[in-house]
């Protein structure tokens, strides 16, 4: 322990990076404990009367009277008890609240903007022309001069846009010529108000042919982006794809089409849809991924049908012992590989569900494969398979242990799957870096490895320290004593 403690400190101090721990000198962990203790001790004598003194807060922390609290309270009347309802009634009854005088605050937004009273006659006229109440609640920041002139029905594009912007619905149908319509659009764009731009786009979309709409928008990028956003919003996938095609934005076209599969629940239909995505103009990298996506789902459908059948037949041991938790459909590739290593490990390469087949089809890198197979076999406690996974024969027939992921990772995964010490020990021993090996061995209580390593390092001090950590009278203790008493070893300390 001492040794590791020292190690740790060395690491913190020598590391270039700031360790995120509490400072030792001023040990804050104990400080936290201290303040906790103080808090707790205070509880004893102040009792809990504070509940009444402090702001009233329901357990969930919602301050009583807040909006979200009130929604629950006022909406819940039907289900609550009679008593509760009475309470609610008194709380909600309006009559108990005398109408409070309005605060005479001068800070009203509209008072700032209502700089001027408008001529009465005009007001009624303009009100009559719009089908919504004239007073907008927004601070009417941009009340334009123009508004005071336009008594007629004949607003210019810019006046129309200004009215739209204030939320006054007015007819756009009067703009018949393409030129007028485009001017309307340009006015809207220059205001930057997305709401108005969209309103004009809806009008243009309805009254212009697709070809003209696209052509004109191609040279008006801001409006174009709003149209794309708007089409996405309303889910007009067809027009959106037409638009991307027209603009020759092929990758977006492909992705936008591919995106639709997310909304298809039925696996067969989804598969068929993915098939239509293959060959779309994705980037080269993505093309391969899309092809894989299709192939994977195709496989999963076959595996799922097969395994569901096996499982319900109840004849196969693995499914009886480890019933499936969920369907494999639409799971990621690595999850599928894990599944296949779990249920179909020994199958020949020829079957769709065999791990080797998956590895080949999807060009899964060695590292990824070993990692996944290891996790699956360890979960089943199939230590033989684990062993085989790392055993390689060279051409002379000698066997050698090799792990593309590094044996320290192997050990971690085995430990996570609660492998017995004998198994762990074997792999801890294979870790090349001595310090890592020692740390892992200590962490996972592989006594033999710790002891042997200390002996090999001729580190008497550390061995002595370790002696205090093993059980009294245990075989480990004996072993340590034997080594410590040995005259063969020339200790370095």
């Amino acid at each position, binding site marked *: 322990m001492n040794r590791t403690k020292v190690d740790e400190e060395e690491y913190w101090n020598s590391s270039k990076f700031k360790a995120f721990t509490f400072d030792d000198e001023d040990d804050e962990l104990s400080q936290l404990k201290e303040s906790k203790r103080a808090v707790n001790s205070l509880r004893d004598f*102040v009792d809990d009367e504070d509940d009444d003194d402090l702001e009233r807060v329901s357990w969930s922390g919602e301050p009583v009277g807040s909006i979200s609290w009130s929604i629950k309270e006022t909406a819940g009347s039907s289900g609550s008890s009679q008593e509760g309802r009475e309470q609610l009634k008194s709380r909600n009854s309006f009559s108990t609240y005398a109408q409070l005088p309005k605060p005479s605050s001068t800070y009203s937004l509209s008072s700032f903007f209502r700089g001027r009273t408008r001529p009465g006659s005009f007001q009624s006229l303009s009100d009559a022309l719009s089908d919504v109440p004239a007073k907008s609640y927004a*601070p009417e920041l941009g009340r334009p001069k123009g508004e005071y002139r336009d008594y007629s029905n004949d607003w210019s594009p810019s006046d129309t846009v200004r009215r739209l912007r204030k939320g006054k619905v007015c007819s756009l149908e009067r703009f018949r010529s393409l030129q007028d319509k485009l001017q309307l659009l340009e006015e809207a764009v220059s205001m930057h108000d997305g709401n108005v731009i969209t309103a004009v786009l809806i009008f243009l979309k309805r009254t212009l042919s697709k070809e003209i709409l696209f052509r004109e928008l191609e040279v008006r990028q801001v409006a174009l982006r709003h149209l794309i956003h708007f089409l996405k919003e309303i889910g007009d996938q067809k027009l959106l794809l037409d638009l991307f095609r027209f603009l020759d934005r092929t990758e977006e076209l492909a992705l936008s089409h591919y995106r639709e599969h997310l909304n298809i629940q039925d696996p067969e239909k989804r598969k068929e849809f993915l098939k239509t995505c293959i060959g779309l103009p994705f980037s080269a990298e993505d093309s391969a991924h899309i092809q894989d996506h299709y192939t994977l789902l195709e496989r999963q459908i076959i595996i799922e049908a097969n395994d569901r059948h096996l499982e319900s037949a109840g004849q196969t041991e693995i499914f009886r012992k480890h019933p499936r938790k969920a369907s494999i459909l639409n799971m990621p590739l690595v999850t599928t590989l894990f599944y296949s290593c779990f249920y179909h490990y020994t199958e020949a390469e020829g079957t769709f569900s065999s791990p080797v087949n998956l590895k080949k089809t999807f060009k899964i890198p060695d590292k990824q494969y070993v990692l996944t197979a290891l996790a699956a076999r360890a979960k089943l406690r199939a230590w033989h398979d684990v062993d085989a996974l790392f055993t390689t024969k060279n051409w002379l027939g000698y066997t050698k242990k090799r792990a593309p992921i590094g044996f320290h*990772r192997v050990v971690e995964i085995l430990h996570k799957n609660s492998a017995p010490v004998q198994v762990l020990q074997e792999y801890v021993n294979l870790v090349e870096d001595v310090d890592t090996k020692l740390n892992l061995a200590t962490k996972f209580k592989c006594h033999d490895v710790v002891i042997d390593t200390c002996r090999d390092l001729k580190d008497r001090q550390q061995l002595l320290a370790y002696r205090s950590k093993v059980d009294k009278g245990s075989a480990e203790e004996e072993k340590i004593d034997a080594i410590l008493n040995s005259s063969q070893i020339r200790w370095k300390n």
Partner: protein
Amino acid sequence: MAAHLSYGRVNLNVLREAVRRELREFLDKCAGSKAIVWDEYLTGPFGLIAQYSLLKEHEVEKMFTLKGSRLPAADVKNIIFFVRPRLELMDIIAENVLSEDRRGPTRDFHILFVPRRSLLCEQRLKDLGVLGSFIHRDEYSLDLIPFDGDLLSMESEGAFKECYLESDQTSLYHAAKGLMTMQALYGTIPQIFGKGECARQVANMMIRMKREFTGSQNSIFPVFDNLLLLDRNVDLLTPLATQLTYEGLIDEIYGIQNSYVKLPPEKFAPKKQGDGGKELPTEAKKLQLNSAEELYAEIRDKNFNAVGSVLSKKAKVISAAFEERHNAKTVGEIKQFVSQLPHMQAARGSLANHTSIAELIKDVTTSEDFFDKLTAEQEFMSGVDTDKVNSYIEDCIAQKHPLIKVLRLVCLQSVCNSGLKQKVLDYYKREILQTYGYEHILTLYNLEKVGLLKPQTGGRNNYPTIRKTLRLWMDDVNEQNPTDISYVYSGYAPLSVRLAQLLSRPGWRSIEEVLRILPGPHFEERQPLPTGLQKKRQPGENRVTLIFFLGGVTFAEIAALRFLSQLEDGGTEYVIATTKLMNGASWIESLMEKPF
């Protein structure tokens, strides 16, 4: 009721009062008893400006959340829908209205769009045949909501995506409108600085709105000296790093929503005697976090490593204060003691809560994985091995850590290397798609489009130049008594805040070269003031800068700005505004593709 909003240099209660007044005016327009049907998302932001009591004063008797099919029964004259302008909500409203009509007494329907009416939504209501059912269709410009004495947010969760992915400027328009409101209340801001494409747009909109506004001259003495508009995409790096301030970590781990946080209840279980039989609460503990709480105001912006000692000192002070009761002998002394009791108990409650929160956070920050993650992040930010596949990221993918965490790290590496080498990028992409699912191609494409994850072009990595010139990486950080903003990330000084700092002193002219590397134009505009309103600064008086983050800001950046405000010779105090309070996780999440 919201006294903490007026503690700062600029009294933000003025804004709060103004928006409350607007709300009252609308409610009074719908005469008679009312029920409000809430778009659930809005209740959080509304909670910051009004309590139920305000609504009740204006005859709101019932409140419901917006849900499909029928409205719950309510004996009221008016039904008012408070909603964001979103199409899917219109469908629900139409369903409500249509099923209502078939039942007896007619009621008046109204709709209040927040923050803006939408013609698209009204079109949808028209298509569904219910538009005519609404007597009032209004908008409530809740653009900027005061969160704290120096903090405003639009809480527009889609703003970054809209601006940088969809290139939709609607939220910029709202930002500009919010700034016009601020100027109406706090006077014209004489100088506008900005960096980035969106910043330029907002400044243009403001200038245009001002020109069109022909009403009475704004005769309010200006409170703000400067406005600084910053695009989030000028600094994509900062939100990706893990925040290491107390408030930042609370947000990283538990997520702060509208100044509330939900925490696991176990640590907060009341330890009362004779309470043993009671079950532990299972509902999350919800706490409000703002500067109204004295202790929180003191520790929120500290590096988490400096929080423990403050809590410990507080505990001693409070213990001592309670001990005083033994010294109280005379009636007068006892009375004195008792009169202080409520304050002391509040302080004790606050200390108990934050001790528990600090313990929860400490469990996370002392974990091995947190340390490994931080090491990887700090390597990237200090420029170590940013062009190779990182083994910690590989491990995270192999162990199937949450995808958002993986994406955040990969993006961080990409940003710190001005894009990844094609081979490295392809490797990460393949690993991610194979492990988390091919459909994430869509998310990766989005990340690429906004510049978070991209191949390096031209084989040049500009990050080291930026890092050195702006001194983004500081090797000697004092977390306890910081001398530089880099304490908020234990070494990394947020780029955005460094830009603000350098603007105030010595000015951006000194960093022209870096400004040219960062995306978007930088600019300066002046809004002339009538002579009567021009400020004559007293010697030693600080400037006040309103800094607006377009696309979101993190709590760590806010902490860094507060640190600058508090510097004795800093010369500038900041009020912070943003489209959304965010962190790396919520940011990445907003860019992920989900089914329609």
